[in-house]
């Protein structure tokens, strides 16, 4: 399937990809440090294992940044 990840096209060979799986695939070391938005809707942190990423979804990984 093809998704847009952070604005860029990505082809992914995975029949059943969850948000948790995507974060693992993207080697996000600290999933708790990223907010995930799919097609404009923020996914609750507790639903990463239950939320499936589908074809043509726009997925944005928004990192927490505390520095100032």
């Amino acid at each position, binding site marked *: 399937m093809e998704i847009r990840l*952070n*604005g860029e096209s990505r082809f992914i060979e995975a029949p059943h990809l969850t948000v948790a799986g995507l974060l693992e695939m993207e080697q996000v070391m*600290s999933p*708790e*440090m990223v*907010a995930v*938005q799919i097609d*404009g809707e*923020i996914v*609750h*942190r507790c639903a990463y294992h239950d939320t499936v990423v589908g074809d043509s979804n726009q997925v*944005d990984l*928004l*990192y*927490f*940044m*505390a*520095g*100032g």
Partner: protein
Amino acid sequence: MLNLTDEQMDRYSRHLILKEIGPEGQVKLLQSRVLVVGTGGLGSPVSLYLAAAGIGTIGLVDADAVDISNLQRQIVHTTADINRPKVESAEAKLKAINPEVKVEPWLLYLDASNVDEIIRQYDFVVDGTDNFATKFLINDACVLADIPFSHGGILRFDGQTMTVLPKKSACYRCCFHEPPPAKSVPSCSQAGVLGAVAGMLGTIQAAEAIKFITGAGTLLTDVLLTFDAKTMNFRRVNLRRRTDCPVCGDTPTILKVRDFERESCGIQTNGSD
């Protein structure tokens, strides 16, 4: 309406010829009150540009003193200011740039007991803090008091910012919901930050404050602007206000501010590292 003096006509001449600002906009700036929380990496460029722009009153919040490790990015402070309270050091520089600006130094950290009383004295708030506890505190307090504000965050080569018009546009919580677990937060002192990134993001925040006061242009509302200085890619991620947001949603569960455990971006400080 206030009339500009000859000196002001000269000082602000580059604003006055902008059709989006002009004399009316400059008078609004001169009559405005902006609070800058944190006088560090972000607060430095923010407060310098706001002073230069002729913001009438600038509030500065910080309980820290200048440390030599700050000077790589906190350009409002100099080597001679080491150990001096940051708000005092910054006040001197802002007055030097523009003596007609009034500076209100707040030598303290914002917390649930003082935030509401302080922010209500200002038209706009700029978040230049270095920890999630204060970022969420500012968001909640500004939403509850209906004070517009600019969120800013930096780490390594990255920056992010959004402008929030409470109950009208997405707030910080609509996007980030709640502070991450304290143990997982990478600190600037551990992860590092490019000094110039603070300047890039802080100047965007200063521009947003000026745009809000004057009504020029369109604000960074309902969008998270992020950039990566390694590639210089800038990206706008559209956001929308969540009806289930705990603070600005239809049935809010946060009805007054409360303190979170303050997990600083710096090791020993918790101000504006």
